[in-house]
């Protein structure tokens, strides 16, 4: 197995992880950033960002690309689209195994694993993804010109996207599990005022069906338990996010929602391990808050390294590839 050592390993390359990398590498820390998906995390899912101070308007992809280039310019090594196959974070020297064939070690680790869109997890969802089921209105809205569609969810994303989808669709039915919405009042008002939008409350989608593409959904009333079949052309799902922390379960303290428990300085329950961004337990999840988290975690990790000068693995510990 290949092995390499660093001062700090950052797991995750969204705004939190990249910011941590920028601060660490600029302080001459040997820094490795590992990312299971595409660099930028959920930032690349945003078409336009207009509330990032100092930049009037930028696409998520462009902002993530600038952050990535900054991190690289300061000396970070970035490995994207890898799979983290093992995490050993308890000892003085932490190790992260990648793709089952490489191992990286460091005395400090920053976890910035982010989150992902929540899926319904019901029969037919995987089969009809891209064939009637979508998670991105701006990407796929124009495939549903003059069609009847459903939007699942009751938060800001669901109601704002429901309104935006009325540009294309003949009708939009919002299906929501509660008897009230979680969205801001203005988003609720905009949706309720739109004549193309109707609402099915206290209900959820129980099943997707069709032959080559989505044709039908089963809507389950969560109060009565009754299910009804409905012919439909498309379903857009906006039911929030889940933290990417499955691989951390049992390794450090998570709350019931699976979010990483942290101190105000973003220490986790393990010494030398910090966490930042959307995967930690916190109220507000914005690019700006992720960037702030990345900064705090990096500065705190550097403080830890100064106070706990841990000897790095020597060459005899390095295995050669068989």
């Amino acid at each position, binding site marked *: 197995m290949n092995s390499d050592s660093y001062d700090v390993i950052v797991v995750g390359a969204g705004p939190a992880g990249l910011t941590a990398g920028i601060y660490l590498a600029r302080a001459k820390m040997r820094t490795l950033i590992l990312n299971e*998906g*595409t*660099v*930028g995390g959920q930032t*690349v*899912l*945003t*078409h336009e960002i207009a509330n990032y101070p100092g930049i009037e308007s930028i*696409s*998520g*992809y462009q902002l993530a690309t600038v952050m990535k280039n900054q991190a690289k310019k300061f000396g970070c090594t970035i490995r*994207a*689209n890898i*799979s983290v196959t093992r995490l050993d974070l308890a000892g003085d020297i932490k190790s992260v195994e990648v793709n089952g064939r490489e191992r990286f070690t460091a005395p400090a680790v920053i976890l910035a694993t982010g989150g992902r869109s929540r899926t319904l997890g019901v029969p037919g969802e995987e089969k009809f*993804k*891209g*064939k*009637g*089921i*979508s*998670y*991105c209105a*701006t*990407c*796929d809205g124009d*495939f*549903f010109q003059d069609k009847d569609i459903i939007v699942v969810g009751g938060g800001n994303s669901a109601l704002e996207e429901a309104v935006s989808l009325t540009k294309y669709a003949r009708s939009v039915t919002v299906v929501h599990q509660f008897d009230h919405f979680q969205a801001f009042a203005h988003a609720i008002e905009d949706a309720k005022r739109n004549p193309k939008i109707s609402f099915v409350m206290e209900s959820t989608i129980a099943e997707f069906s069709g032959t*080559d*593409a989505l044709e039908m959904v089963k809507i389950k009333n969560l109060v009565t338990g009754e299910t009804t079949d409905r012919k439909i052309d*498309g379903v857009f799902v906006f039911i929030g996010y889940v933290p990417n922390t499955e691989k951390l379960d049992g390794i450090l303290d998570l709350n019931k929602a699976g979010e990483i428990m942290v101190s105000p300085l973003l220490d986790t329950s393990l010494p030398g391990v910090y966490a930042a961004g959307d995967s930690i337990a916190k109220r507000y999840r914005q690019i700006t808050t992720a960037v702030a988290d990345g900064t705090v975690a990096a500065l705190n990790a550097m403080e830890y390294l100064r106070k706990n000068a841990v000897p790095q693995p020597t060459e005899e510990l390095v295995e050669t590839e068989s």
Partner: protein
Amino acid sequence: MLQTGLTHILSEKDFQETLKNNDNVMVCCGRMGPMCIPVYGVMEELESEYTHVAFRDMEFDGPIGHLIRNLPECRNFRGLPFTVYFRDGKVVSATSSIQNRDQVTQILDAEFATKAVTK
């Protein structure tokens, strides 16, 4: 033009020559959108590993986007990007919407038998 590190297919001639000159071709036809960018990223990562596959992208809304959009294999697709795999010029697999590395490599390994030695 798509802002990716992949080789772009810009004309019908490009497209035909790509299929003619390469046994194994993966074409991702999309926009610079949230569902497409991750697939381009996966393809960029895989280029050095799957040297026996030609990885290309194509603009969904460009003048030749119809070459992918109108393929029979894509007729039920309603999610970007449309990703099509060609062996000897024939479509062997096609997917709609975002795909991760594992999903892509599963198709590459299944359809394009010869896998290059990894670095």
